[in-house]
C-alpha cells in the first residue's frame, strides 16, 4: 500500500497532478451545482 | 471606394496631428521601455546584443497596443462611427483605412526610431536595415489585428487591459518572426525566411482583418 502512495519516489509529482485535477474538477462541479440552484 | 478610404486616412491623420502629444507619448513609451531592460538585466554588451531583437519587438508590440484604444473611441463617442456604418462606403474599406492611418502614426515612426534603440543595444549596424524592414512589415499586422480587438472592446469598461489580453496572444507569431529574423541575421544565417513569413502574415491580415474589424464594429454598435 505504501509503495502505491510512494509512486517510486515520484509521489509529489504524481499525486500533485492527480490531486489538483481532482480538486479542480470538483470545484467546477460544485460551482455549477450552485449556479444551477440559483438559476 | 478609394475616395472614402482617402477621406478616412486624411481625417485620421489630421486628428492625430491635432493631438500630437498622444502620438508622441506612444513613441516615448517605446523608447522608455526599451531603456528599462538594460537597467533590469545589467548592461553587459553581449547580453544586450543577444536580447536586443526581442526587447525592441516587445517594446514595439506594447507601444502599438497602447494607441489602439484611441482607434475607434473618439468616433464612437461623437457618432461618426454610426455614420460610417450607415454610409455607402463598404465598412471593410473604412476599417482598413483606419488601420492604415493608425499604422502611419504608430508603427511607421517605430520602424524609423528603432535603429536608435538598436544603437543603444550595440546591435551591429549591418542589421539596422533588416530591423527596420521587419518592423515595417510587422507593425501593419499589429495595427490590423489590434483594430479587431479595439472594435470588439468598444465602449467597454476595463477597456485597455481587456484589449491587451485579447490581442497579445494574436501578436505572438509576429513577435516570434520579427525577433527571429534579426537573430538569424545576427547569427549569419540570413533572416529572409522570417521576413517572407512576415510578408505572408501581412497579406493574410490585410485580406481578412478588414472583414473581421467591420463585423466587430457592427457587433459593438448595436
Amino acid at each position: 500500500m505504501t509503495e502505491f502512495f510512494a509512486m517510486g519516489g515520484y509521489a509529489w509529482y504524481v499525486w500533485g497532478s492527480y490531486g489538483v485535477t481532482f480538486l479542480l474538477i470538483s470545484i467546477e462541479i460544485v460551482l455549477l451545482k450552485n449556479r444551477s440552484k440559483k438559476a | 471606394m478609394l475616395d472614402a478610404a482617402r477621406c478616412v486616412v486624411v481625417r485620421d491623420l489630421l486628428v492625430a496631428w491635432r493631438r500630437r502629444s498622444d502620438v508622441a507619448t506612444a513613441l516615448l513609451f517605446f523608447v522608455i521601455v526599451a531603456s528599462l531592460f538594460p537597467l533590469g538585466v545589467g548592461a553587459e554588451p553581449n547580453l544586450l546584443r543577444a536580447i536586443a531583437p526581442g526587447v525592441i519587438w516587445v517594446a514595439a508590440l506594447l507601444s502599438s497596443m497602447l494607441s489602439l484604444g484611441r482607434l475607434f473611441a473618439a468616433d464612437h463617442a461623437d457618432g461618426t462611427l454610426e455614420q460610417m456604418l450607415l454610409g455607402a462606403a463598404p465598412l471593410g474599406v473604412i476599417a482598413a483605412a483606419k488601420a492604415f492611418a493608425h499604422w502611419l502614426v504608430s508603427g511607421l515612426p517605430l520602424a524609423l526610431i528603432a535603429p536608435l534603440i538598436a544603437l543603444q543595444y550595440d546591435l551591429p549596424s549591418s542589421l539596422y536595415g533588416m530591423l527596420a524592414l521587419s518592423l515595417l512589415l510587422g507593425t501593419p499586422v499589429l495595427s490590423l489585428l489590434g483594430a479587431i480587438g479595439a472594435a470588439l472592446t468598444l465602449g467597454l469598461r476595463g477597456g485597455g487591459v481587456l484589449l491587451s489580453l485579447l490581442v497579445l496572444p494574436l501578436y505572438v507569431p509576429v513577435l516570434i518572426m520579427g525577433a527571429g529574423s534579426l537573430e538569424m541575421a545576427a547569427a549569419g544565417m540570413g533572416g529572409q525566411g522570417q521576413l517572407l513569413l512576415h510578408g505572408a502574415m501581412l497579406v493574410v491580415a490585410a485580406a481578412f482583418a478588414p472583414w473581421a474589424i467591420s463585423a466587430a464594429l457592427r457587433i459593438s454598435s448595436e
Partner: protein
Amino acid sequence: MKWFWYASPQTFFPLAGTLARWCGAAAGVLALIGLYIGFFVAPTDAQQGEAYRIIFIHVPAAWMSMFLYVIMAFWAAIGLAFNTRLSAMMASAIAPTGALFTFIALWTGSLWGKPTWGTYWPWDARITTELILLFLYLGFLALQAAIDDPRRADRAGALLAIVGVVNVPIIYYSVQWWNTLHQGASVSLTRAPSMAMTMFAGMIVMALAFWMYSIAVAMVRVRCIIRERG
C-alpha cells in the same frame, strides 16, 4: 429536419438534461476504468518509473483543451452565421471547461516535466502553444464577462473565438519554429517511440472519460444559461 427542432432553447432544455445525466454517468464509469488501468494494469515505465503515470491525465486533458476550443469556435461560427441564440449559448457553456482542461494540461505537464526533463517549464513548442491557448480561452471569458448585453456578448465572443481558432495553427507553427531555433540544451522531447498497449488503452479510456465529462458539464451549464436568460 429533426435537428432543427432542437435549435430552440426551450426544446433543447430537456434533451440537455438527459444528455447530462447519461454522459455524467458514463464519465464516472470510464474514469474508474481508466484510473484502474492507469494504476494497476499498466506496467512501470522502464525509463521514467512511476512518474509517467501522469500521462493518463496530461495527454487526455491536452487533447480536450484543443478539441473543446475547436468545438467552441464551431458553435460560435454557427451562432454568428445563422443568428441562433442556442449556438452562442453552447460556445459560452463550453469555454470554462476548455480553460480548465488547458490549465490541467499545463499543470500536469509541468509536474511531469520536472522529474523527467529536469525543469518545470521547458518552453517547448507544445507547452508554449498550450499557454497561449489558455490566454485565448481567458480572453474569451473576459470579453463575455465585460459585456452586459447578452446578445452583444454572444456575438463579440463568437468573433473572438473564430479569430482565435484561425490563429491557433499559425501560433503553433511559429512557436515550433521558434523552439527549434532556441532548443534548450538537455531537453529531449520526443515521446517514447512506442507505447505499451495498456498505457495507450488507459490514455484512450481517460480521454473518453474527459470527453463525457465535458459534454455533461457543458449541458448543465447551457441549461443554467438558458434559465438565466429567461
